[in-house]
């Protein structure tokens, strides 16, 4: 270790005879200049290597095997067979459909609502700071807690939501056992957590828009609606696309909310709300014998996220030009 350099014995020759050698501190300084930057960034790479890169490589390796989680002697190399099987697996495609469906159902209203909130908070409201902070509160609650509380609200027999609906004459909705019911319930959980967060990001972008644009628009007689449409939205477009990318990545990995809502990894009797991440969990963790197949699901999810991100990236490039 570099500590030894400071305790290295002095040169044996006496100072007056020797040609002028760099003193140890100089050498150390050079070492410092060269090595320190790497040392400073090392912790990130070490930690990323252990917790990021290694699991990815390991997962890819597992996905090429028939992998038993708890019996190491029951493992064998199968090449790409898991991926081939996956492509003709109805339950996998069902999970893909559910994930994309829930993503759309959750994200579109969420972004509209976030825009509305941000636009409202961008005006001169009383207690503006309080409201700006308050909309972030749902984001700091734990996902599990959100899942449990909303799971109770969305109960069929004694849930608050069905009770409220019954006041206006709507029959009890079986939230868990219907596709639309379950998708709606999960979307509400997702939106509860992320609408405020996205609203804050939009708000930050809106604050960067020069005030005088609005002033001159107002002088020209543009209504608030017109100002939003013609000034605010075009000006925050890059931010909007950033938020869409983040939401896409989060949406594709949707796991905890539907898992807690379901109570198991199946996502309903007919897997009507089983997401890709839940299917990965079912095959990779719950079913000890198919961990390799589960790893292949993880691999496909990874690919899906890359494809979605690249599409988004292309969109950004286009919009910036």
């Amino acid at each position, binding site marked *: 270790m*570099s500590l030894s350099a400071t305790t290295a014995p002095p040169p044996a020759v006496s100072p007056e005879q020797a040609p002028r050698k760099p003193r140890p501190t100089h050498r*150390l300084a050079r070492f410092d200049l060269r090595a*320190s930057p790497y040392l400073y960034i090392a912790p990130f790479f070490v930690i990323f290597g252990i917790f990021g890169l290694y699991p990815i490589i390991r997962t890819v390796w597992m996905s090429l095997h028939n992998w038993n989680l*708890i019996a190491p002697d029951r493992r064998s190399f199968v090449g790409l067979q898991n991926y081939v099987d996956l492509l003709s697996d109805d339950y996998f495609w069902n999970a893909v459909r559910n994930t994309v469906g829930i993503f759309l159902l959750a994200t579109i209203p969420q972004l509209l609502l976030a825009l509305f909130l941000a636009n409202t908070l961008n005006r001169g409201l009383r207690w503006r700071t309080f409201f700006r902070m308050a909309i972030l509160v749902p984001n700091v609650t734990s996902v599990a807690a959100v899942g449990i509380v909303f799971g109770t609200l969305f109960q069929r027999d*004694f849930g608050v939501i069905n009770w409220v609906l019954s006041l206006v004459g709507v029959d009890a909705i079986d939230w868990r*056992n219907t596709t639309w019911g379950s998708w709606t319930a999960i979307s509400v959980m997702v939106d509860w957590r992320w609408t405020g967060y996205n609203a804050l990001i939009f708000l930050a972008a809106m604050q960067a828009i020069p005030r005088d644009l609005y002033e001159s628009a107002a002088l020209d007689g543009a209504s608030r609606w017109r100002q939003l449409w013609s000034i605010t939205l075009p000006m925050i477009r890059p931010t909007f696309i950033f938020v869409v990318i983040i939401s896409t990545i989060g949406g594709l990995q949707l796991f905890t909310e539907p898992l807690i809502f379901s109570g198991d990894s199946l996502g309903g009797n007919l897997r009507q709300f089983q997401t890709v991440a839940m299917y990965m969990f079912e095959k990779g963790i*719950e079913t000890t014998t198919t961990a390799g197949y589960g790893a292949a699901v993880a691999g496909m999810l990874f690919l899906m996220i890359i494809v979605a991100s690249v599409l988004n990236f292309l969109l950004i490039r286009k919009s910036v030009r």
Partner: protein
Amino acid sequence: MSVTKRRLRQAAAVALVAITALGAAAACGEAKPEAGAKPDKLIVDTFGEFGYEDLVKQYETANNVKIELRKTGDLGDYRNKLVRYLATGKGAGDVVALEEGIINEFKLNQANWVDLAQYAPAGKSGEYLSWKWDLGTTGDGKVIGYPTDVGSLAACYRRDLFQAAGMPFERDAVSASWPTWDKFIEVGLQYKGKTGKAMVDSLASVSNAVLFQQPGDLFYDKDDNLYNPAVKPADRKPTDLIAANSPAVKAAWDTAVKIHNAGIEAKTATWSAEWSAGFKQGTFAVTMCPSWMLGIVKGNSGDANAGKWDVAAVPGGSGNWGGSWLAVPTQSKYPTEAAKLADFLTNATSQVAAFKKSGPLPTNKTALASPDFTGYTNAYFNNAPTGKVFGESVKNIQPVHLGPRHGSVKEKAFESALNALMAGQLTADQAWAKFLNDVPSQGAF
């Protein structure tokens, strides 16, 4: 740059490297204690209600050792945790419970389990119902688990609701009113006619009861085949599944469909939030009760409903649902101490104490014969003589061969198809087809 600043930076860099290295070293160097070392703490992992709370305290004082009892409510969650502990080689309790539906899967890798034969006191194997002891061992004589309980079967019913409906409500009269499942449906229709409400909680509850009332294979044959072995793998059709031809599975399915057609089930899937809430709300008046379920019924119904539940005979003769073993994972640092604790928790006195606390039915023959057990009446269940009721039915239990992934097939293929039928998502024929479609993927091992 001043010297001190540079020194500071060097020191910082050195410290950084040192800390990183230390962390890595700490991660690798976890020493095993020496053999015979006194454990700081023993951990016991159970699911549902095993009734071990008081026993553990008793053992702590008697042996001067700390014990942590980790309870998980749901068997599915519990199994996932256990899989994670075994897959990563750390985290499992020193003593863990294995249920009948999952023990065979965990037996597949014997290296995960301490062979308890080397620790068992002399004669322990003879103390238990012989079939129960045998199921906890492997083919070559290793003892994976000490028997805890067996489900056996009765029917829990709400006497207050039956009485309010103007129906027979004393336990003997109720037992007499439903000797068969057809009669059970008649009683259900009567209850529905009087109250307008459903009588039994779910289709899965009934099917679990019927499943073990018929002899023969369930989802696997004796050699753990999922398909009829006479059919070549290439020619396999869903109808060649053992499950498709099992009389027991067929009987369980048909009974469930009959109940669904009569409309006497409350559509609360067993273990769902609606189901748990239904106990307090009186959504249903009957649920099938293996002995261990008594603790769950009590927990879900709460003290306010004490004395309202009672225990009657199950329609269709005695059956079994569930039952477990206690095993010691090889990753335990104190296998000797753990085996001793497992021995204590499964001895005759402890089994009777656990039964009184939460209901798990003894499998120890001394416990089953003790007056303390046979004379026990459960105050919560209107003083039902649960010791006598379950004690008698346990003698009639025929051991059934459960394949390696029995629990998974039952819960994720069989019961989810029944739940889909119950919720009106599928017709009976569609649900049966879905069940057969799911068996191979859930049952493969």
